[in-house]
């Protein structure tokens, strides 16, 4: 018996995308294999490592703990959608580069998405708020200190240029909240 498939229509990084997939297709797999957006990394596939974190209607979620069919009709922002359309990196991305907030880069897409939302909701986080905010993302390389510095630096960059904080216009709206 062939498996039933479903039409999935979602807005990814501001672009309307459609795909057909079985209900059990994880959002992470649809993004990577169905839509070719391999910036979203897949680590543990049970919600522990945080590498696959994307923004769903602006809120960070584990894309490995969501079926693509459930995300149908919603807006998704992946790490590919954080930079400006002309390729200029977002303040969070620039801060991670400046402060060496990554080494191998495997966990980085998850951190970037998580921190983008964290700083949108809490523009001037305390150290405790930073730690709580990134506590669900694992990094095996950095020991987290440079990531913490990166978040602080990103907060400064956004404060200096408030319009630059979020993903490009049209994303990260209040829609899903």
């Amino acid at each position: 018996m062939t498996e039933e498939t479903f039409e999935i229509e979602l807005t990814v990084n501001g672009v309307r995308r459609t795909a057909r997939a079985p209900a059990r297709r994880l959002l992470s797999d649809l993004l990577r294999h169905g839509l070719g957006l391999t910036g979203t990394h897949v680590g543990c596939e049970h919600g522990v490592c945080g590498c696959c974190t994307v923004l769903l209607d602006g809120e960070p979620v584990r894309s490995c703990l969501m079926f693509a069919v459930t995300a149908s009709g919603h807006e998704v922002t992946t790490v590919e959608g954080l930079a400006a359309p002309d390729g200029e990196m977002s303040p969070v991305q620039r801060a991670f580069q400046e402060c060496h907030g990554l080494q191998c880069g495997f966990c980085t897409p998850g951190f970037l998405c998580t921190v983008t939302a964290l700083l949108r909701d809490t523009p001037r986080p305390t150290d405790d708020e930073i730690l709580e905010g990134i506590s669900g993302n694992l990094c095996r390389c950095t020991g987290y200190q440079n990531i913490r510095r990166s978040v602080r630096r990103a907060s400064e960059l956004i404060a200096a240029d408030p319009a630059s904080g979020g993903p490009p216009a049209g994303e990260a709206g209040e829609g899903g909240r």
Partner: protein
Amino acid sequence: MKPPPFAYRAPRTLPEALAALAPAAPGTGSDTGGGGVGKVLAGGQSLIPLLNMRLAAPERLVDINRVAELDTLEVTGAGVRVGALARHARVGRSAEAAAVQPLLRRALAHVAHPVVRNRGTVVGSLAHADPSAELPAVLALLDGSVEAASAAGRRTIPAGGFFLGPLEPALLPGELAVSAFFPALPPRTGTAFVEIARRHGDYALVGVAATVTLDAGLRVAAARAGYLSVAGVPLVLDLTAACAGADAVSGGGDWEDAAAYARERVDPESDIHASADYRRHLAGVLTGRALRAATADAIDRAGEGR
């Protein structure tokens, strides 16, 4: 690490959801899609890991994420009613809910990580009935209840009868937990939630939720604690006798009688994370900490006239 195949339905209304969940009558096979027993998918933060690891293989998933009428959070003087689609993050953010029942927000801060709380639901956590999870212990401690609906009707299940065993809620095939009710905190009562986990955000080795009620003379009139990870279901202990007459203003003493009482009554198991003895020890230590914090909170609230 991919889920096994399942039949999938995404109803948009509660009646549609209940029809999709109803056990398939013999011979009607494909009508309900896949037959067998339906399983509810809400936030998926516990269910999808189980599916990914192939520890569960339901024949049919009923995804309630599009049933808007279940996405509710109602706060009244009597308590907080949380609909089946209300995410942890929404409930935790609600100042109204925290004002009526502060223990809810305190406990939610310990549920996994912020990103998981964006998807996971309060009612889903209750229906998952993990004895290591925070919210079942809170519901049990507060004598809350779960409202269950099926194609046949509705019923209210008191917390005391809802948790039958590990991962075993008192929901029948075809029943959907549509909401949970957390009663308001009485006057002159404080709350606390403490837990010890290997890493922040992990399931607790032991956790304790406590409520302490003071009398007009600011002595402890009632003290109760709900325990997680020490038994197959959330354990609630009435510690009033062990705390009798403790003078709250002086800190209530060392709470050693209550801690000893708790150590005698918990029934933890050993696993790779901690031995039963260590969990028993933690239950005593955390009982003291939770009672101390809840008592201090009760004094604050009494001072504010609450």
